[in-house]
């Protein structure tokens, strides 16, 4: 059934209430931005999410989690998107957990994640455009370990992380390495992005790590992280689109011009109705991708591309329509709607933009 089951709906109700209350823009995004927080998110909320069982949603029960799936993770991410709640959920509780699962590192890191204490970051991109098939950072065998050399960027929360998961090319192909942020030879530049979130530029200059720093075997951990991250961010984009749309729809009903609510103007009605449909479609595509991932279907990879591409495209339309329909007020920093446009732009690029994924889909076929 391509809809949430009863348990998933209960989870959704819980998270929706929690995020609307604790994760609201005024309490999180705007607050941390205005006080100039270096992390761009609140550790206390992260801990609360841990207590609520959210951060451990994919973590095995033995490590303190609830061992649920991508569908459940996405339920959380849609609410995060709707409230633009800054947190390490996507990269830590979703992508990193999937990367670490079953590896020797799992035992060390998963319990902390399930408690909402540990923050992990993924270092994959090396240029301004996502393309994990062309990793040039090298992990060269040296003695009983590896030496890492190269640069990374767009490492979300990289300057706040307890653990960096770094993609690098070995003689046997790409692999993922667990690196401590204080490793010698590693330089971390904390960068503020347009949506006030933080990402880092990392520079590795002969950084030595032990052989067991490699996470799992081969490129499987990297692929798992990418699949989960992409499917997850698709849901966050759906949430961003839905949040912007809901705010706009309310505005259309309440705002009056020329003596009538602007929502009564047919041109806006048709655009809103079109957008409604697009958001529903993006949500269905994203749910399908998550279900296929949870089933381990071989069609999952294809549907993940569809979901990320569609959700990105739809979220872009949603924030553009939202800002335009809000008129002048939407251009002010005081109003929240502008944050949706900024967040959309950032997570649209995260794990590859719509063009990257549309192309990947076409190349599969």
């Amino acid at each position, binding site marked *: *059934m*391509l*809809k949430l089951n009863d348990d998933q709906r209960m989870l959704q109700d819980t998270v929706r209430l929690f995020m609307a209350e604790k994760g609201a823009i005024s309490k999180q995004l705007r607050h941390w931005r205005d006080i100039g927080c270096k992390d761009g998110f609140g550790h206390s909320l992260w801990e609360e999410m841990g207590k609520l069982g959210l951060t451990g949603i994919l973590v095995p029960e033995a490590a303190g989690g609830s061992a649920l799936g991508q569908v459940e993770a996405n339920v959380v991410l849609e609410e995060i998107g709707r409230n633009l709640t800054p947190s390490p959920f996507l990269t830590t509780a979703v992508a990193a957990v999937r990367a670490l699962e079953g590896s020797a590192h799992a035992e060390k890191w998963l319990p902390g994640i399930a408690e909402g204490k540990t923050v992990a970051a993924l270092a994959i991109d090396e240029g301004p455009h996502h393309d994990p098939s062309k990793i040039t950072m090298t992990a060269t065998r040296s003695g009983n370990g590896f030496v890492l050399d190269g640069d990374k960027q767009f490492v979300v929360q990289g300057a706040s992380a307890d653990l960096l998961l770094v993609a690098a090319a070995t003689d046997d192909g790409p692999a993922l390495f667990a690196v401590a942020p204080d490793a010698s030879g590693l330089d971390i530049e904390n960068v503020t992005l347009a949506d006030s979130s933080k990402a880092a530029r990392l520079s590795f200059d002969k950084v030595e790590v032990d052989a067991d720093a490699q996470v799992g075997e081969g490129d499987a951990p990297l692929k798992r992280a990418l699949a989960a991250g992409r499917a997850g961010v698709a849901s966050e984009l759906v949430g961003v689109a839905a949040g912007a749309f809901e705010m706009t*729809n309310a505005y*259309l*009903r309440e705002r009056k011009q020329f003596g*009538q*609510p602007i*929502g*009564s*103007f*047919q041109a*806006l*009605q*048709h655009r*809103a*109705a*079109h957008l*409604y*449909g*697009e958001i*529903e*479609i*993006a949500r*269905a*595509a994203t*749910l*399908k991708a998550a279900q296929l991932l949870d089933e381990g279907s071989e069609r999952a990879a*294809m*549907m993940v*591309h*569809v*979901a990320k*591409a*569609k959700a990105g*495209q739809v979220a872009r339309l949603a924030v553009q329509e939202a800002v335009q329909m809000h008129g002048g007020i939407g251009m002010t920093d005081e109003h929240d709607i502008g944050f949706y446009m900024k967040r959309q732009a950032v997570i649209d690029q995260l794990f590859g933009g*719509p063009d990257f*994924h*549309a*192309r990947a*889909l*076409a190349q599969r*076929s």
Partner: protein
Amino acid sequence: MTELDDFRAQTRAWLEANCPPEMRKPMKSEKDICWGGRDFTFQSDAQREWLEVMGERGWTVPDWPSEYGGGGLSAEEAKILKQEMKALGCRVPLTSFGISMLGPALLAFGSEEQKQRFLPPIARGEIRWCQGYSEPGAGSDLAGLSTKAEDRGDHYLVNGQKVWTSYADEADWIFCLVRTSTESKHGGISFLLFDMASEGVSTKPIKLISGYSPFCETFFDDVKVPKDQLVHEENKGWTVAKYLLGHEREMISGMGLGGGKGSSLLSEALGEVDDPLLATDLARFDVDALAFQAMSEAFIDQLKAGEAHPALPSMMKYAGTELNKRRHELVMALGGSDALEWESDRSKEGARARDWLRTKANSIEGGTSEIQLGIVAKHILQLPGA
């Protein structure tokens, strides 16, 4: 679940025994559809035989009650039948507006006598129905109809004209909206059934831009319709019509029009065309088509669970038909000047261009895209009226 397993085994055995091999091959074109009716010319003995055995069992309409010629199957059984037919590649034995439209309306609004009289011949494919809704000049404003039915004691006297009557020239009977009162626009409409062979009925096919003529203009000149052929109450025909419109949209949207049918992606068709711009459009189309396919699945699951918003079919109809139009624009772009050939063997009688032109009606028939967007805005988004 043993009972259902039994049913599945029996069904498969029966299908294997009774479905002629010819009817297990995919249809090649619209011409292979079996419409039934008094004057239907079967394409083959196999086609006739397949209709007969299925009709006898009521499996042309598996979920209708058996007292009205249906199969009397439960939802689970009907699903199993569908799955088994698909597994063996059995063709749909009968397609008709009687099954898809009038039947559900009669089951909901017909009198007991009407159900017994009209439903079984539909199930057996003996009577082919057409739909008399649209009128010249009314367009999207369906309720603005003026075909008049005067009360003449034991019958109505019908005068007026319908348009866009699908296959009216091949249909046996019509279900038709008529005006029985001018006091109220929506409250003066009645729903009548009558024989197309009645005196005073004539049809004229409409030639379309695609060159095909699937629709007619239909004229009524003093047509006498017995009063027992009124469905539901007089002046309450709009209720029936609305029910049917919702049903029609659900059907159209459920067909997954424009979705990537199966797994065939347009970008696979790119073949030798070395054009990165067209490739871009195909790749983006495939994203939208597969996403819409997921939505179709979600929509059907929501419908089944009774959770779909009543106006959701409007969104599906809009999105699906617009997508299908885009698909055919791309097919034409892929075909280049080959696809523009209209009359030549090489071009299969201009099939690509004609099909492309045909899709332009998708966003008009069954309620225009503009009407659907308006319905979504009003009923789902609850935006205020202008």
